[in-house]
């Protein structure tokens, strides 16, 4: 897959989008969000959570605006 750069939005946009230039994480495990996802898909054995219980499927599920 090609690498994707986050360019500035078109001139019509009111505010600029900018990515985080220097990620604070060194590995995937340093990121709380990624660690949570990896645990859920079974990348790691954890005693505290599992894919079946770590995520409440009701949260925002099939909601519409």
């Amino acid at each position, binding site marked *: 897959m090609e690498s994707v750069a986050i360019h500035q939005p078109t001139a019509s946009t009111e505010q600029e989008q900018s990515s985080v230039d220097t990620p604070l994480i060194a590995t995937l495990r340093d990121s709380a969000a990624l660690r949570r996802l990896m645990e859920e898909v079974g990348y790691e054995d954890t005693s505290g959570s599992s894919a079946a219980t770590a995520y409440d499927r009701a*949260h925002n599920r099939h909601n519409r605006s």
Partner: protein
Amino acid sequence: MQLDTILLKVTSRCNIDCSYCYVYHQGDTSWQRMPKHMSLGTVEDVLKQLPTLYEDQQHPFAIVLHGGEPLLLPRNILEALLQGLADRLPATCSRAIQTNGTLIDDDLLELCLRTSTTLSVSLDGPANVNDTFRIAFNGEGTYARAAAGIDRIRQHPQASRIFTGALCVVDPHSNARRIYEFFKSLAVPSVDFLFKDGNYAKLPPGKTAIESTEYGRWLAVAWDCYINDPDPPRIRVLDDLGRLLLGGASVKEGCGQTMYGIAVIDTDGTVTKNDTLKSTYDGADRFEKAWSVSNDRLSEIAASPEFVQYSQLQHPTSPVCQACSLLSICGGGMPLSRWHPETGLANPSIYCADYKLVIGHIQETLQNYR
């Protein structure tokens, strides 16, 4: 076909007038022919049919109250519905209300607590962003009233049992980092970011061309904020994309290739297709057969060829999609965004370029920091 979501359209009217709303402002007119709210009689039919569905399929499903604005339902009928669902269905059949937040009061919170019903509030960001699209009939913004509703939930001593989070429709002109930080400041347990509804005949606000990537860039910035946050809320769409790229599964239609069983019960009891199809053309969410919760068994509807055919719309039929290496991740997006007035749904999503950008960005993260 197993049903996993029952969307109850308990009201057909709303007390605000969001300019992007697919119910009132995308061409569908069915709301005009509906009763303003579900009657007690229809609620009783729902309360008979849903336990029967559970017995028939022996598998839980989520129930979402929706509208219009569901809190316009007279309180005695709302109480009968929520109490009936709590009494007659197991706790695994979750009950949720998707509200604009402007009508939340303490009695409602107690009712939610008593019946194990959760609340999710639609809010697009701080006032300067939210009030661009989420406006009242007099043209004024609705942010202050929605934010007051969220405050009221958060002040409840058992807020964590009631409040599931916020639903934010993306304005790609907004600054994604500021929107992320805004929802963090609200301490919402979860957020879902939705792309605005649109199709080949009518591009959504903020998307300048089929090939443009305003929405994808916005979501990629939100991803960067998310993975660097030491205490992140749940963000459904980013969780789904991340989990799919890590080899897991999604939980909602619109990404991944899981086929979901979604039935909508309209205000008069009519059973319809996924209501978001309303944004394509008038009557697009209607089955040919006029099923009703008053006369028809939901498990039999779900097993019918017409229902199965409708559910299979979730899988894209465009050769472009079927040959794409990202199909297992984006799933072709929401069917409504594939619609073209001449070719129907046999097209890639209008958000195809956006999906490619954000999926590529997430995959780059996963590769760089593995």
